[in-house]
């Protein structure tokens, strides 16, 4: 396997969880189905399946709906195998600069999810893929 192939495989082996998915799965008021699906994704991440990247601004937004979301995510980051579940920082890069120039910019949580997807190649797992229609990214519905 070439270096590029390894890089490509790594890039494709994970998801970005946006704030909508976090609230649906962990908010306590969402559909039980979403909660169980997110639970399964977490189990898979800890077993060597696709990793879960949580953009920091998505976590911040989700935590406004339920404070314990941040605590549960922190517990996972601290206990799961390294990198299986991670909170990712917002960084100034070309993707972020581009995101701020689109006609109908998203809120910061959505912008962070989209720019992290651009940077990693991971699809964004969300409840509302149409939220990202202005971005050239891949999305999947929880």
């Amino acid at each position: 396997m070439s270096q590029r192939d390894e890089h490509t495989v790594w890039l494709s082996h994970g998801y970005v969880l946006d704030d909508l998915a976090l609230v649906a799965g962990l908010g306590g008021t969402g559909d039980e189905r979403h909660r169980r699906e997110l639970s399964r994704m977490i189990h898979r991440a800890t077993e060597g399946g696709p990793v879960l990247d949580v953009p920091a601004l998505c976590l911040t937004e989700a935590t406004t709906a339920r404070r314990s979301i941040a605590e549960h995510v922190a517990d996972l980051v601290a206990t799961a195998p390294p990198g299986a579940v991670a909170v990712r920082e917002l960084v100034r890069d070309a993707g972020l600069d581009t995101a701020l120039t689109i006609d109908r910019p998203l809120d910061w949580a959505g912008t962070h999810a989209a720019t992290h997807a651009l940077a990693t190649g991971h699809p964004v797992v969300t409840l509302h893929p149409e939220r990202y229609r202005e971005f050239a990214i891949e999305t999947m519905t929880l």
Partner: protein
Amino acid sequence: MPTKLDPADLHAFIDRVFGTPDAAARRVVDVLEAQAAALAWVRDTTGRYPSPRPVAAAIQEAANGLRDVNDERDPNQILSAIAAEALAAHMAGAS
């Protein structure tokens, strides 16, 4: 307060806090993984990100039809075939 969990208890912790996945949840996540793998194959084949929209849409539509817990078809097999067909059609249309 930070919780220091025993890694051996991690799965029990996940079940307690996030809920125990049932067969329906396992099926949906299996389909999501197959969908992600199909999208990754398209990216690897074309060398471009994101996958062409018509191809991604075909994979999404097929994935939606595989989520039923009673569906015993292999999502990896089906979505990889759909990805190959959709990409071939897209490239034929583009040439």
